[in-house]
């Protein structure tokens, strides 16, 4: 019974596929999975937009949207209908073809990342040996769509937003990759299925999640910072800073194309949260061994939504960084720290089992952090903000 509930989607898919003619079986199997991904994640997108608007409102002592439906829960439906029925405006000076291709390619590429995410036991669309590499390849491709959107609009705000976005995404892609490499070193595999399996073990009822190791905690924090920047979320939302650039690279988009960018942003957020959960939070494994009876996919999606809530919380808290602060932080703090962290992973890997490695690795992380912060403070790279012209 427990395993039936756990595998319910897999069994359902097999049942449907079995009723198809033999020639179509493989195609139908793939199509079913793709349709599920394309249906589930936009639904989660709607939920997270609502969560964000309500949550941000509460953080600012407002009520948030509460007009459409009970407690405003139908707000995303209203927004969707609105964006579908709005006029699609293309600027006169815009490059029409590129202007059209940008949102399309962005959404397509963002959804590709889900192909390798294990969303539950046996619930990976493509079992790939180089799954992590595939994910990052897809993530890197979104930059080009952002650039296309900004350049084709023939608007200086769009172009500035695109330039900022691309510079930021390139800078933070390095720590994103490097912090994930730690996990790859520890598991010895690029396959996300394997990474989850390694973490799905329990000792004393506690799971072997990588976040519960000294290097894993550091990696996770760095990964979270880089992922936030990679998805252009506040406090790294310079590319679409409303107070400076209207809406950044999608200023000149309206109607459903705008909605597509919005969708791509949130779906990208969900997918990077899924990746973070897979790499550090044990993917679909339960947090305690006695909770394993709850289906694996529930754990995966609750971890993803929890990450989304943390991202919303951060957005409600932190002010936007300045461009030089952003770059200094990436190149002078995050990247050196990820490199030091890699050394830490190597030490962890080769010290073998035992309590000694816990102490040594914790010491390395703490010392690295203290030294980096001290050095940064002295050189004013990460000092508190000084106001030269105000006051």
């Amino acid at each position, binding site marked *: 019974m427990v395993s039936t509930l756990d595998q319910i989607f897999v069994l359902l898919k097999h049942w449907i596929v079995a009723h198809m003619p033999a020639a179509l079986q493989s195609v139908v199997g793939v199509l079913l999975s793709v349709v599920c991904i394309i249906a589930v994640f936009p639904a989660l997108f709607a939920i997270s937009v609502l969560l964000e608007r309500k949550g941000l409102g*509460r*953080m600012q*002592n*407002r009520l948030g949207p509460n007009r459409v439906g009970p407690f405003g829960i139908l707000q995303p439906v209203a927004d969707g209908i609105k964006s579908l029925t709005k006029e699609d405006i293309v600027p006169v000076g815009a490059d029409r073809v590129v202007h059209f291709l940008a949102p399309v390619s962005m959404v397509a590429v963002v959804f590709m990342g889900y192909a390798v995410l294990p969303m539950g036991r046996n619930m990976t669309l493509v079992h790939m040996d180089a799954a992590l590499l595939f994910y990052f390849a897809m993530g890197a491709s979104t930059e080009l769509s952002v650039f296309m959107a900004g350049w084709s609009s023939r608007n200086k705000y769009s172009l500035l937003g695109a330039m900022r976005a691309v510079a930021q995404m390139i800078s933070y892609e390095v720590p994103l990759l490097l912090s994930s490499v730690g996990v790859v070193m520890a598991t010895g595999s690029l396959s996300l299925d394997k990474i989850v399996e390694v973490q799905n073990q329990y000792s004393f009822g506690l799971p072997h999640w990588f976040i519960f190791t000294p290097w894993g905690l550091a990696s996770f924090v760095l990964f979270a910072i880089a992922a936030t920047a990679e998805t252009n979320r506040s406090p790294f939302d310079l590319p679409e800073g409303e107070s400076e650039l209207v809406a950044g690279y999608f200023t000149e988009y309206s109607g459903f194309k705008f909605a597509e960018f919005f969708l791509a942003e949130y779906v990208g957020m969900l997918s990077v949260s899924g990746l973070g959960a897979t790499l550090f939070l044990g993917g679909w494994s339960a947090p305690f061994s006695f909770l394993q009876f709850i289906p694996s996919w529930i754990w995966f999606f609750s971890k993803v939504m929890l990450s989304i809530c943390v991202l919303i*919380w951060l957005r409600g*808290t*932190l002010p936007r960084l300045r461009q030089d602060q952003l770059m200094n932080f990436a190149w002078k703090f995050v990247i050196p720290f990820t490199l030091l962290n890699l050394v830490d992973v190597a030490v962890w890997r080769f010290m073998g089992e035992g309590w000694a490695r816990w102490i040594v690795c914790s010491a390395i992380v703490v010392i690295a952090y203290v030294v980096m912060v001290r050095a940064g*403070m002295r050189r004013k790279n990460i000092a508190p903000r000084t106001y030269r012209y105000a006051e």
Partner: protein
Amino acid sequence: MLGEGILKGLAETARNFAGSFVSKERLTTVEYPEERLPLPEASRNFPFLVYDGQDWEKGLRCVACQICEKECPPKCIYIEKSKDKKPDFVGKPQIYPAKFDIDISVCMSCQICVEVCPFEAIKMNTEFELSTDDRFGGLLLDRKELAKSNEYYHQIHPTEATEVDARLAEEKAKAEAKARTDSAAKAKAAADAAAKAAAAPSKSPEGGTGTPTSAATKLPAQAAAKSPEPAAKPAEPPKTSTPKTEGGD
């Protein structure tokens, strides 16, 4: 240490998040269409016309002097004078506006019309829910839509309305006293009055022709008293309160 401030900030937002569910006082916004904040007394939006008594058409204070029409910077007021007269609050027969339109899509809420009005007839309204689906007619308010009772004026600007009422009462008392003394004087020196009456008509037509639009009671007399020159500049006489706003109109 780096990161301490972030944690502090996160704690603060979390406190706000939880607090907004617990205490209603934290919420800075109100549920607008259902509940509204009381408007401050000094708030203003677009002008309206004050009337005394019950019948808006009879009680309208406006005497169609057209000062506001001339002073209005964006020229959003349009007035047509009536042919006949009706008694004002003192009892004196006055012209009244046969047509009084304000285009609130043009009005810029400067309150100049209120300041120049010698009859306390035009005041600023606080009504702001004026959206309409008729772009042209819906935003052009006519006499009937503009007319609001003195009680309404008391409701929206109590202090100001009380002052205005006191002033008007004073004026009325003065006018009544003057009427009384006038009648007494009339009775006493009829010959003197006849001489005055002979002098007055010779002057008043001059002022009347020079300023055909200003039908205000005291102004032609003033203008005529100053010098004969204003007769050549028809726009000059009404400028009693704001002397240097515009040249020749």
